[in-house]
């Protein structure tokens, strides 16, 4: 019998090994299924909102359309839909899509008062994160590697087989054993991803990058199993050592580092920007109109000289008030975004030393479901909001009527292009970490092969 086949039989005939592998396969399948269901649910939500949106717009059109339609009225009541359809790979790494809005209806009013207007979620439920393929990969795969690899050497020593195994003439025993376990673990975690990718018509290159990340992360943990398992004298100590590594590397250090990052880079809540903007807008009612227009003209000098109106109210004053409200918090917004970007950058750096964080960064960047993806959606909303405002301003400042034909010309939001990309830095850092640990583990195993009492 071929040695590899013999080794495969030995692996699969062990109840513990088989259970661990089947469990990983089932959990990976379940995670992919949950991810697909979640993404399908988000797509269905977007479609449902699109239908409602069309009905809502039609009712605004019916109420306001006519030869003397009012653009201000229309801009106030016509909510325009923006949506961020789930990227094809989001099923594997849901990331921020579980917490951040993927549908937002905006008006020509101040943007900052609308941008963070999303559903509230239970922070305790959000804390453990979503159960997706990335979760299985980062948190559960190492446990299966520990189950399969912690007693590779110690188990043989404890049962008195180690000397017998080493006394046999053949070579490559540990390499075969580890490679086989590695292949089995990768199959259990990788096959569901590939099937999920096919179902969701995900780009093959993206799936390949995720698999590459998984392969490196898995190699890191097998390297650690070789290193720890080859150093400890008993299986219990080796298992305890490996579990300790898992707790420290995937739970304790990331949590401590996140706390440190949060302390180092405080980020205001989006709702604080909303409140600040609203306060500034409302202050506009109490200050002279000239002051409001003066602020507005700083960004829109093209409408200077067209601010005069009769009576106590005009929509152009109202929208200028909102625009001035946005301008008043522009500094805070920039600071907020810079803080988010800084946190993202620090998390990226953290990924260079913590393989779990690095893998997380890699798969979420590839799936376009990280903070960067969320900010890209916000940027696209801001761009669209600018288009919307500049569409209405001529009607408001030139006192033009808003007809049905104008209604059809209201700009529509085009979903942003996906920004998912290969995070080369984390990928290389992960490769380096895996290489170092596997090399150290291999040296340890080689020593066992050469000299064992």
């Amino acid at each position, binding site marked *: 019998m*071929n040695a590899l086949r*013999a080794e495969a039989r030995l692996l699969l005939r062990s109840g513990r090994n088989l259970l661990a592998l089947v469990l990983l396969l089932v959990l990976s399948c379940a995670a992919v299924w949950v991810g697909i269901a979640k993404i399908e649910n988000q797509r269905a939500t977007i479609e449902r909102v699109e239908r409602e949106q069309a009905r809502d717009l039609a009712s605004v059109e019916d109420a306001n359309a006519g030869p003397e339609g009012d653009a201000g009225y229309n801009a106030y009541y016509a909510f325009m839909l923006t949506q961020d359809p789930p990227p094809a790979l989001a099923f594997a790494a849901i990331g921020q899509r579980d917490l951040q809005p993927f549908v937002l209806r905006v008006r020509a009013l101040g943007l900052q008062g609308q941008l963070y207007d999303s559903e509230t979620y239970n922070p305790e439920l959000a804390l453990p994160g979503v159960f997706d393929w990335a979760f299985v990969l980062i948190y559960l795969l190492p446990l299966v590697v520990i189950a399969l690899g912690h007693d590779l050497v110690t188990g043989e020593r404890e049962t008195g*087989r180690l000397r017998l*195994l080493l*006394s046999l*003439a053949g070579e490559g025993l540990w390499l075969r054993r580890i490679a086989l376990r590695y292949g089995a673990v990768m199959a259990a975690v990788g096959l569901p991803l590939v099937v999920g990718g096919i179902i969701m018509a995900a780009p093959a290159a993206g799936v390949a990058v995720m698999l590459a990340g998984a392969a490196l992360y898995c190699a890191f943990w097998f390297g650690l199993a070789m290193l720890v398992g080859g150093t400890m004298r008993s299986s219990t100590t080796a298992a305890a050592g490996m579990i300790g590594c898992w707790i420290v590397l995937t739970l304790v250090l990331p949590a401590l580092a996140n706390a440190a990052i949060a302390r180092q880079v405080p980020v205001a809540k989006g709702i604080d920007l909303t409140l600040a903007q609203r306060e500034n807008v409302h202050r506009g009612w109490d200050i002279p109109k000239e002051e409001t227009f003066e602020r507005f003209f700083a960004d829109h000098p093209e409408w200077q000289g067209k601010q005069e109106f009769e009576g106590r109210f005009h929509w152009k004053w109202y929208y200028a008030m909102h625009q001035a409200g946005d301008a008043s918090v522009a500094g805070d917004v920039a600071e907020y975004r810079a803080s988010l970007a800084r946190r993202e950058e620090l998390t990226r750096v953290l990924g260079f030393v913590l393989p779990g964080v690095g893998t997380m960064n890699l798969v979420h960047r590839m799936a376009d479901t990280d903070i960067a993806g969320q900010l890209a959606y916000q940027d696209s909303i801001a761009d669209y909001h600018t288009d919307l405002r500049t569409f209405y301003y001529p009607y408001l400042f030139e006192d033009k009527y808003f007809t049905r034909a104008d209604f059809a010309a209201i700009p529509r939001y085009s979903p942003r292009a996906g920004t998912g990309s290969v995070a080369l830095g984390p990928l290389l850092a992960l490769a380096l970490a895996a290489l170092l640990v596997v090399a150290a583990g291999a040296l340890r195993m080689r020593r066992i092969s050469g000299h064992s*009492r």
Partner: protein
Amino acid sequence: MMTEPHIQPAVEIAQLHHRYGADPVLRGLDLILQPGEIYALMGGNGAGKSTTLAALLGFISPESGTVQVCGIDPVADPRAARAQMAYVPENVSLYEHLTARENISYFLALSDSRRGSDAIEAALTDVGLASSAWDKRLSGFSKGMRQKVAIALALARDVPVLLLDEPTSGLDPRAVLEFNRLLDSARKRRVAVLMVTHDLVSAVDIADRIGFLIAGRIEEEREAQASGSRFDLNALHDRYTHAERAA
């Protein structure tokens, strides 16, 4: 024992010294084992018996002296040397979740042996394991049956040298007799057997020579008589007791 000087010894150890840290274990061990000879190496705990086996298997690099198995230095070429030997550790526990046949097949695969199922069945037959047990998992086997499977593995490899570490430990008298019959059959096939043992009675029954390892060297060796009782058991017992005390 008839010596055949023109034939290369199966095992040849000369002036072997080895220490673990500051503690010397082997201090000038000399041992020659001819093909077809059964040698029982006896000694107290810490006398160096296991270290001698480790040196033969190439697990340790001796401080000085030479070791050769069928003319091959196990330190210089452990793979080639190990291909000449089958080693049965004391109380070996094979894989519980594999059957007797699968266990042997697995270990043969690891040793790059091309011997097939015929050799496995022949070995299992030789060790006297009932054919009804061949395809049963080892988890249901008695200690004696497990030992038989381990020895069957050694036989199935069909190598010129057998190294046995306490092979009769835990076996009942009947199983010991069967085991000795096996060794006798191996001797007839010109297989050299080095057994490290505490079982004086079994050694007297089957060994051609018995050596007493005391403080890292063979202090005394007795050869089996061609006629009459093979060894003087009482004298050996006294010697063995002395060796144990020395340890």
